[in-house]
């Protein structure tokens, strides 16, 4: 295309529109979390982090996210292998269905889990409760809700990679006498490791930040089932400067983790110079 003055003017105009729009909508917002958190200096932030409720909320969030990610990683790799490497009736339906959790409102997710796993009225929850296993208003419910909302993330990263690498190397390994476990460990896993890593980082970020679904299934009792996001909501709605700072401090940590996760993914992505 000829590099005319008009062309350059349009390029500049679009560039400025995009930068302005993103600054207004996103950059300013993220900067504000930090500004609000440290508005009163460092002391109130440290006070906030010393509160047992805050420590408990982050511990609970981390452990629920950890288990959700472990479950989703194993399930995700398994489903991806099945979807890409095998044919079976209902494969297309399953392929579409695994995306469903990303399109469903967290509130609907919470309601759905309560209807099945509530100890009082749930389809399966009543028998589970009689067996001494409480799901709703307890950590297992939080793990279920978290696993539900982040379920497709690993699959959506691994499936394209598996499709791309094909089966030649795997078949070669098999023909040379490797067992299926050896083939997976030596050939498949190293080939999908980056895709898998992004999926895991994304799942972790999504899991730590889940709010709506967890709010319904956990009950949000401080020191028992209150996760970090629930703590942010509760503290913000209480009066007093320290409560507000505590809410912002927890929000700041959550935002920091989210941004770090994105930076890790963006910088690790192989061949990122390709689009330049």
């Amino acid at each position, binding site marked *: 295309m000829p590099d005319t003055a008009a062309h350059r003017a349009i390029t500049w105009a679009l560039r400025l529109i*995009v930068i302005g729009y993103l600054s207004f909508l*996103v950059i300013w917002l993220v900067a504000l979390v930090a500004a609000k958190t440290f508005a009163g200096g460092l002391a109130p932030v440290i006070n906030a982090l010393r509160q047992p409720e805050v420590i408990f909320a982050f511990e609970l969030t981390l452990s629920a996210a950890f288990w959700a990610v472990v479950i989703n990683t194993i399930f995700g790799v398994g489903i991806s292998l099945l979807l890409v490497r095998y044919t079976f009736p209902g494969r297309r339906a*399953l*392929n579409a269905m695994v*995306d469903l959790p990303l399109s469903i409102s967290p509130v609907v997710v919470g*309601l759905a889990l309560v209807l099945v796993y509530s100890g009082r009225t749930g389809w399966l929850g009543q028998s589970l409760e009689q067996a001494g296993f409480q799901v709703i208003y307890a950590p297992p419910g939080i793990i279920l809700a978290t696993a539900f909302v982040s379920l497709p993330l690993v699959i959506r990263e691994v499936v394209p990679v598996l499709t791309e690498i094909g089966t030649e190397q795997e078949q070669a390994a098999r023909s040379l006498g490797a067992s299926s476990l050896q083939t997976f460990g030596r050939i498949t896993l190293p080939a999908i490791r980056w895709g898998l890593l992004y*999926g895991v980082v994304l799942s972790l970020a999504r899991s730590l930040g889940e709010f709506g679904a967890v709010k*319904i299934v956990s009950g949000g009792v401080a020191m028992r089932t209150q996760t970090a996001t629930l703590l942010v909501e509760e503290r913000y709605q209480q009066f007093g400067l320290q409560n507000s700072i505590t809410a912002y401090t927890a929000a700041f940590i959550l935002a920091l983790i989210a941004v770090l996760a994105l930076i890790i993914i963006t910088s690790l992505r192989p061949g990122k110079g390709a689009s330049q």
Partner: protein
Amino acid sequence: MTVDSQQLAPAPAAGAVTTGGGRRDRQRLPRAKRATSLTPISGLGLGIALTWFSLLVLIPLTAVLVQASMGGWSAYWDALTSPQTLAALKLTVGQAVLVTAVNIVMGTVIAWVLVRDQFAGKQLLEVVIDIPFALPTIVAGLVLLSLYGPSSPLGVNWANTRVAVFLAFLFVTLPFIVRTVQPVLLELEQEVEEAAASLGASRLTTFRLVILPSLAPAIASGAALSFCRAISEYGSLVLLSGNLPYSTEVASVRIMSSIEGDHLTEAAAVASILLVVALIVIITLDLISRRVARYA
């Protein structure tokens, strides 16, 4: 969905992942000739995976539909057409349509600039695009409130108004169209545009007749996802919209208050609508990707 031209590289945004990744593999899955039929071990694996998927996703979602039908058809209809629910649904769909329209324009412009323009700091914008996806929604709500609420540095107070609902939707849906359009734009061959230009087409004509038709399926996928995300949004609105019935109460907040009031059948009725919309979106995306695959 890839930000890079390399298909191996996945994108940071999972929303994007759904469309891009999903689109790509979906268009290949039915053609995968190397796929084999199930062996006993993989069959067992499929059984375990399906059991878990059913316990986690399918049975609970079915429970929502069953619960919604608990009171019979008339109770279902009454729950949906109660003035408060109707107002919530209208607000949600109206704002979601509005936000999706803005995203169709802005998302395409952003994707265009990210692909075709070169400037310092572009890499930073790549990260910024995905922030709405990774940032916990309650954190988004908290800062949206401090930016546009009673103590706004802009001197506005949009808390508890419909503007707040619009802004929250606009924030959480930002990545979708950008991340669906970007890879298509990357793979678009500029020679075609140059040919059009050399044949005397103006820039606008080239864009309208050459570029836009190639981007249309990606824009449609992104718009569907963006709409779906908007109508299901909850976390960023809890603090910001005030959740005033008939005024700023959206569908998911309506469901939440029904659950808290222990009106599970009512909650499930509204939830069933959101669920059906999500299903329609999933099926639409599948159809779009198949169409694209056929012409590719």
